[in-house]
């Protein structure tokens, strides 16, 4: 019978957590991983039927994401560097909505679920579709934007550049529902094992869009903590792991694996006390380290704004972007930017909407 590998046996977990939050280069990650016992991917090959076979007690092992050795085909879906980031941001938006929905259900179990993500955002945050925010300088607009700004602060994307190593790191953090450590491998690290099918207010369905980010970087460091009022006996600590791309020696079937603490796939965790001490609140944080943008810093920063505003053209929730600097830009998408031209000019010569165009088959 395998037992869960306990981080506390090897390191000062508070220090480790603090360092993990600052790990922004490949070297940082490798230095931290060197302080804990990790079985090499060449020495442990995960088998879905018998994951315990070869498991070295008291050590951490690399387990395929989704516990599927053939996961590369479902992860390597990105055709450019921006889409995975957008997918991660979408995950963050869903986490914010789900937190509100679960809290609503605590208050009233019979409360009907919102019919769409936009309806959910309207219900929980009082935000209309961003491109439909009332125009003009009026109190209604100010009030809505106040809400939008507050909400955006709960979903942040940071682009960090390291001049010495020449690496980019993309950090996406939300203050959403988060996950209990014992569920991280079933949710954040699953592929296609959806929990969203009966939730029309969420965006994704198969829960694997964000996973494409793994293939765009060298390491991904994920930390997640479930919101306190939703724990219901679950672990109040922080589940964490590192994901990397593995190329088995002499084989062509590469795959993506994460660091597991137990053969059933559970991830390591920091205790509730350590989480409190370090001040990590609920939500999820993905740091995609050594992110491959395929170009230099100036170009990356320059392209990030238009590209994100284009891919998330009319995001259901605005978010903050820290593009290689300490101050944030509020990202509201191009649909809003176009609407805003009517107020701040140059006014478009035409801005026309045809709602509900019937699309009939032949």
């Amino acid at each position, binding site marked *: 019978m395998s037992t869960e590998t306990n981080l506390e046996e090897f390191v000062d977990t508070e220090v480790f957590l603090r360092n993990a939050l600052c790990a922004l280069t490949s070297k940082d990650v490798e230095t931290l991983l060197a302080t804990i016992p990790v079985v090499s991917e060449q020495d442990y090959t995960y088998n879905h039927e018998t994951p315990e076979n070869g498991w070295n007690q008291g050590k951490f092992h690399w387990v395929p994401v989704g516990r599927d050795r053939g996961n590369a085909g479902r992860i390597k879906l990105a055709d450019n560097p921006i889409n995975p980031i957008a997918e991660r941001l979408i995950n963050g938006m869903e986490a914010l909505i789900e937190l509100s929905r679960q809290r609503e259900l605590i208050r009233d179990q019979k409360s009907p679920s919102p019919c769409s993500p936009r309806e959910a955002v309207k219900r929980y945050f009082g935000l209309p579709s961003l491109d439909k925010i009332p125009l003009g300088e009026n109190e209604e607009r100010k009030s809505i934007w106040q809400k939008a700004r507050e909400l955006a602060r709960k979903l942040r994307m940071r682009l960090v550049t390291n001049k010495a190593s020449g690496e980019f790191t993309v950090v996406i953090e939300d203050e959403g529902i988060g996950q209990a450590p014992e569920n991280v491998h079933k949710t954040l690290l699953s592929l296609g094992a959806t929990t969203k099918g009966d939730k029309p207010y969420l965006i994704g369905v198969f829960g694997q869009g964000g996973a494409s980010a793994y293939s765009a970087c060298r390491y991904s460091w994920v930390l997640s903590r479930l919101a306190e009022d939703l724990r219901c006996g679950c672990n109040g600590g922080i589940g964490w792991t590192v994901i990397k791309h593995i190329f088995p020696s002499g084989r062509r079937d590469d795959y993506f694996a994460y660091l597991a603490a137990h053969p059933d796939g559970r991830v390591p965790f920091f205790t509730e006390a350590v989480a409190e001490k370090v001040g990590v609140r609920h939500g999820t944080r993905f740091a995609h380290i050594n992110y491959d943008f395929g170009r230099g810093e100036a170009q990356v920063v320059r392209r990030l704004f238009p590209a994100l505003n284009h891919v998330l053209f009319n995001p*259901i929730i605005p978010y903050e972007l820290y593009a290689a600097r300490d101050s944030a830009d509020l990202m509201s998408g191009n649909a809003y930017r176009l609407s805003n031209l009517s107020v701040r000019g*140059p006014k478009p010569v035409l801005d026309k909407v045809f709602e509900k165009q019937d699309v009939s088959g032949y």
Partner: protein
Amino acid sequence: MDSGKVGVDKSLSSDLRHGYGHIGIRVVVLQKSAKNLPMTVTPEEGGEEETLVDVGNTPVSSYLEDPKRGRLCAVFLVNGQRQHGWDNAFIQRDLEFKYLRNRMIVIVDVDGLRPEAISKLVQGSRHQFYEGEVYETLRSRVIATLKADPDLERLEAEAEEEVYELKSGDEAVKKALDKLIEEHNSKAIRKTQGAWESGNRTDEDVGGSLDTSREAIVEDDPDVGKKGYEPVLIVIPETYTVRLRPNETRRLTLTSQPVSEWRNYESMDLKIEPEVEELSVIQNILSQGATIDLRFGEPENFDEDEYPVETTFRIWARFRGKDEPRMVERRIIISSPKKRPPKPPPILFDEPTYLKISSHQPIKFYEGGPDVHVKLQWDGKDYLSAGEKPIWLFEAKCTSEGVSPAMTFSKPKDGKMELLIQTPTRLTAGDKIGFEVAAMGPNSRLLLTTFEGEVIRPPEPRKIAATVRTGGQRRPPYELKYIKKENYHLETCWGATQWTEDDPGCFQEPTQTVPLTLIINEDMNELESYRESLIEKRLAESTIEERKTNYVSHIAFHLYQMYRSSKEGRESGEGNGNESKLEDMRKEIRRVSITLLRLMES
């Protein structure tokens, strides 16, 4: 299909072939100048600044993912996330709004599609839709909605006109040159009756005009004349009546439909009937059409009571390989400007009192055509019909039996909106259809209006009998070009393979497709020195520009005269444009240029 009403979600069967749900389409056309684009946009009151780096040169650049390639200016959104996109070739080829392609963004929100339809579109990669049956239907719907949009058509026509204006370039020089030529010609005696040669105007007093009745191809309704074939001539803007103000130039654009046929253009004749002495017409042949400038020069002491002055102009054009000439006719009304005060903004109420159709009636439905846009107006404030649960609802229904086209409304803006009607199938030309539009408010308030639609076949090439002018022209068309040092090797100069800094200009004889070309050397040494001397004298920009215009127009005029003389010489058998003649002309134009510059310096 829908019962013909809108404003209510439809009950659809589970068979996707009969209905995929609905989509929202937003079209935004930005102002022309990229300079107007803000480098930084402050999104919110007191909020953070969004730094927008200038990433391209077109107005939509900062709204595109990759502005350099004009990529994805039409986007398809699922929950606000782009899942598919088209580049501006869609605007150019499918919508045929070529001149709006760098200013237009189309946003298609597909959240209203049924989950099954979305599922068939969206792929795991989320990068693009699966281009199957649902996609094709969606694509057709977007095109049908936007293709005949009157606002987009108007903006395209405006943009096209401006582009033509730009292409014609250096208007001041051309006007000056035209004036020189006209003044010269008015004193000249016409020697021969020429063949058709396109030009400024056809004057009966110069002799040689013979009117004959023959067949011509026009674009007209299918019941006019006999069946004809493309190309046809079209005038932009596509209004039958051209309105002119005294002393104001109005530019029209003439081209062929299809435009590609213009490459076979051979010649053109334009006639004003009845002739209006004060009306000047200047035409300029370009690569894809021609511009026609109309101007009514009001004489002194012209009696106001004589307005409006009415006439028509007819243009005949010949195309290589086509027997019949192509013809287009427009009515011209010249009237003095009535000083109207600017239109006040419409007065809108919380309790609207009327709803009316503002489109010209009967509404025309073209067989198999795109959606028909019917303009509506009411005096209700926009918010009354906005939002998910509007206070007022609009409904439209077709009152003719057995016809139930799908109809939707555009979002009201300043009391104006459009009813979009998908052109009904199974109707033939001549059928009439009745429609009723209702605005329903609280307490059973009802505003009602009706209109009639008529199904017609779209205009097509028709062969008609018409009077054709076969007379000669006073001056041939020309094209004015400039050459700079870096392009000296690209053009020949008086038979030499290369230009030099001593050459002020040359002409190139017209061919079947290219008019007489007058080329001016902008980097000629003496001209360069002259320009520098003007700058040193700190003359006003307008003065420098005026002198440059004088120089260029006179050199061009001299080149023009040299061409005429050379042509006449050849026709009379005096010479064949041999090398020594060319060399003489090269020296002659240099002598003229230097003399002119010296005169201007003094």
